[in-house]
């Protein structure tokens, strides 16, 4: 498991709605589990932007990119590639 996926998982599991969840597989649906509301989404975007020093564009904050840990990780990796001086 890479560092990005584990950071995402860590963030999600500390949400109040995650109380009942012990395990979160990379492909599990985050939206179906009701983990995220509008508040949670905005907090998460801000957290990832600060943690990974990236910018997530508004039009990328859509259900497809928040469907699972895997989808989120791909979103973050894409953003890291366009980061000025990013790898």
């Amino acid at each position, binding site marked *: 498991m890479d560092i990005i996926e584990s950071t995402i998982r860590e963030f999600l599991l500390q949400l109040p709605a995650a109380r009942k969840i012990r395990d979160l597989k990379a492909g599990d649906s985050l*939206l179906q589990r009701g983990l*995220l509301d*509008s508040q949670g*989404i905005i907090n998460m*975007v801000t957290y990832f932007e600060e943690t990974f020093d990236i910018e997530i564009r508004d*039009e*990328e*904050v859509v*259900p497809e990119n928040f469907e699972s840990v895997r989808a989120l990780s791909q979103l973050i990796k894409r953003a890291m590639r366009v980061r000025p001086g990013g790898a």
Partner: protein
Amino acid sequence: MPPLQSFLTETASRHGARPALSMDDRILNYADLDASSTRLANSLIRHGVRIGDRVALWMPKSLEAIVSIWGILKAGAAFVPVDPAAPVSRLATIARDCEIRALVSEMDRAADLQNELGDHPPMRAVVYAADGALPDRAAPWSSLTWNDVESESAEPPPVRIDDRALALVQYTSGSAGAPKGVAISHRALIGQADWTVNALALSTEDRIPGYTPLSSAMSTFEIFGGMRAGATVFPVPPRLAPFPAAVAKSWSDQRVTALYVVASVTQMLLSRGNLDALDFSALRTVVIGGEHLPLQRLGDLMSLLPHARFFLSYGRTEAKVRSLHEVKFPPKEIDTRTIGKTAADIHLLVLDQDDNPVADGAVGEMWIAGPGLMLGYYGRPDLTAEVMRTITPAPNGSMLACRTGDLVRRHPDGTLELVGRADDQIKVRGYRVEIGEIEAALCRHHSVEAAVVIAVPNVDIGSRLHAVVVLKHDAQASEAMLRDHCAAELPPYMVPETIEFRASMPLMSNGKVDRRSLRENAARLGLQG
């Protein structure tokens, strides 16, 4: 007068082929909506629902949920919308409080329902309004699927009620801790729907998104106002709702013409909705309500949507008033505090502590009188008596009125200015302070997106002021800068002692800022001194 559902039957007979509801890739026209809701009414009646009964609705927003509201009304019962995100224990509290006869829910909640309500169920029947197999375990109530409903007759049931009947029990948090049910008549909902349709000139050509949760007081605008006009309502799919840019894009694609949003959602759309990249040329009416919207954000939104008319709206759960104040560009500070026009038969009274009218220009508490009033808190005459009284003198001699807790001042031109809450008024070092004034001052700082001020109890000086601030995207400001800014506008006792920065405000399910959680957090941070 006939009850609310006569709207639907009337619209269905005149515009049956027009789309009533559209969500995801499904469209329900007015004739289908009328027939489906009649089938549900027949099914509910077959399972014991009678005139005056309560039927709860506990499921995410969907076409079936809206069909159900109409079906419950057609059975002569009142609907009780419960926040779908609320735990089953809250549903149980509400179900017992108003003794529901039936429940409309969805299949994957069946196990929760059996565990929580299986022993002493208040209801006789549960309709599962979404696909799925019935649970194996026998439940102590009749379980129906949507297929069972669809096989009922579409012949209108012989239900005779008029507009004085109970239509809706809306639960709101009570200061005593348990939720209280606000009982609303058909007449109050009809009056509000007619007023909004006329004041906003809504028609069959309108396309209106349904964003506010069905459990919140504001959703009656979309459902009853929109359908009174024969417009098309686009309920926002729950999967999309948390994503500001996705919601905004769907509204642009749907070419929505009229929009109702609460202030905090407006702020979310402005900061994360990608609005400037989208086409909103069809949008002609924007109504913003629920709470105070900072002037700067109102101006930002108006600049983005130069073709739309803007209205700020005031409403109460206890009285279906829905005032509308039209704002012209550029908006002024006073606009954000003005209570606008209401229906002609709604009277807004400004009274002192002894229920006597106050002079123009003086601050008093606003009371509401007229047909929009609630019938009372369900099963709680004691709580009802605390807020509803016959007021003399009133425009019609003496009138039954309901207190709002809002402090207002009447200007010489007749408009009312909101100056604060009767119950949020606090004392700091012996001075009387209106929280809203401090929040407005913080919001005037160019870096501040939103601000909430709370009074943290302190054993030595009564209370300390603590501010929670959300900065604009990419903006910077320090605690010291903001305190300096406040100190430049306010007397020293009104300057917050501590300022906490957050990425966004915590919201309650109705979209309003969750002040309680901010207060509890401030107390945890040890700010109580």
